[in-house]
């Protein structure tokens, strides 16, 4: 069954962990949760494919886990607080995962954060129709500039490029 469209699907580069994904991704998240225990981490590392058979996973989900495709895991119902446990099992810092998901090197990602993070300008909406919050914009000292459709991206171009095709595939499902 096609996933019903939601207003928040318009937010670029974002897979909202909603009730639908929570249901679909139950196996991914419970697998990740199992990695809280050292004995399970060892068993997983010893034979990943075999260990994954213990959980209710679709072939796509299993593949995404084995490939460590973190964005795909989010799309298929994984939640970041859970998938981070898979990253930790591999010995990666969270910043490493963030870099992977955004298509950056860890160094560039760290630099972006030190520089104040990714700007919201140009990153509010895929369609260009999503407007800045009316409730909070008025309270800001200066008027928050509105990102128009096709406004230049301040984010790393790679991130946007990655986000778009995925969203289309998500809609096609």
């Amino acid at each position, binding site marked *: 069954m096609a996933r019903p469209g939601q*207003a*928040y699907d318009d*937010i*670029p*580069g*974002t*897979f*909202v*962990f*909603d*009730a639908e994904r*929570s249901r679909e*991704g*139950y196996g991914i*998240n*419970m697998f*990740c*949760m199992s*990695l*809280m225990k050292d004995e399970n981490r060892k068993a997983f590392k010893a034979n990943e494919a075999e260990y994954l058979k213990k959980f209710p996973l679709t072939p796509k989900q299993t593949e995404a886990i084995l490939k460590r495709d973190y*964005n795909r895991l*989010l799309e298929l119902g994984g*939640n*970041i*607080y*859970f998938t981070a*446990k898979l990253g*930790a099992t591999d010995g990666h810092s*969270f*910043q490493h995962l*963030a870099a992977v*998901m*955004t*298509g950056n090197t860890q160094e560039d*990602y760290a630099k*972006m*954060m*030190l520089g*104040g*993070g*990714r*700007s*919201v300008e140009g990153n*509010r*909406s895929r369609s260009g129709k*999503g407007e*800045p*919050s009316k*409730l*909070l*914009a008025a*309270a*800001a000292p*200066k008027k928050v500039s509105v990102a128009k459709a096709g406004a230049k991206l301040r*984010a790393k171009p790679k*991130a*946007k490029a*990655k*986000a778009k095709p*995925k969203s289309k595939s998500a809609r096609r499902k």
Partner: protein
Amino acid sequence: MARIVAGIGSSHVPAIGAAIDNHKTEEPYWKRVFSGFEKSQAWIRELKPDVAIIVYNDHASAFSVDLIPTFALGCAAEFPPADEGWGPRPVPVVKGYPPLASHIAQSVILDEFDLTICNKMEVDHGMTVPMNLVFGDVGKDGRWPCPVIPLAVNVVMYPPPTGHRCFMLGRAIRKAVESYPEDLKVVIFGTGGLSHQISGPRAGLINSKWDKAFLDNLSVNPEKLAKIPHIDYMREAGAEGIEMVMWLIMRGALDDKVDEVYRFYTVPASNTAVGHIILANRERGTRASGKHKPAAAKHKRAAARVKIERKRG
């Protein structure tokens, strides 16, 4: 009578906990964050609250996806720190305050807020990091300075409770506390946020303008904040920035008129904008709180100026 005297907003970034646990607080990157809480530590030492209610969220530690309670109130006598995959944080076990906790549960459920009651629960960095930041070093007796009533809110799975629902729950908590006969000085923490996104290709998003506007409105115009729809939080403050609704429980539990005692904001800690605020209720029966002189006096003077100008105009 028990009374809530102040509300504290604080981010709960896990990396802050790791910096404390690994003795990195003096490194320049982290000192920038920790120095913003020094005044708060002095403030709370002077205040000496009897109980703290801490609104926070669990991050796949005590709750998996087996059970996802929207509001879960900790009524246990103690709450051990959870093993978040690297062993439990080396912080003391958090002592609860079951008599007030169960009183709050009974009162707010009858006020139509259907809480989940937790008589056994572990707590993760979402709660213990703000405690570290605001209480500072744990005393030599190895105990937190006061008992805590944890209120875990689901902000992991969409949809979390709306900002308005959170604000109204805060009000119900205020009513519950004020109907408790023991003479207690209570503080309430709202934790999480501010803007951040840690998932997907848009990870790293920070929106300082949004954060500042949120903090500006929190003291004087919380009803406006309570109307913000979830999509605005996610679009403007990041998918995980939606945690900010938890601050509205804290604000709802305070009186309508409060004084901003202190504020701190810095970017980044790890992937997150760190926000911190202290709001104090005014002493009832007096015009302004005498205790928190700097901010209270400033507000009083500003209010007086406005009145004079209005009269002149």
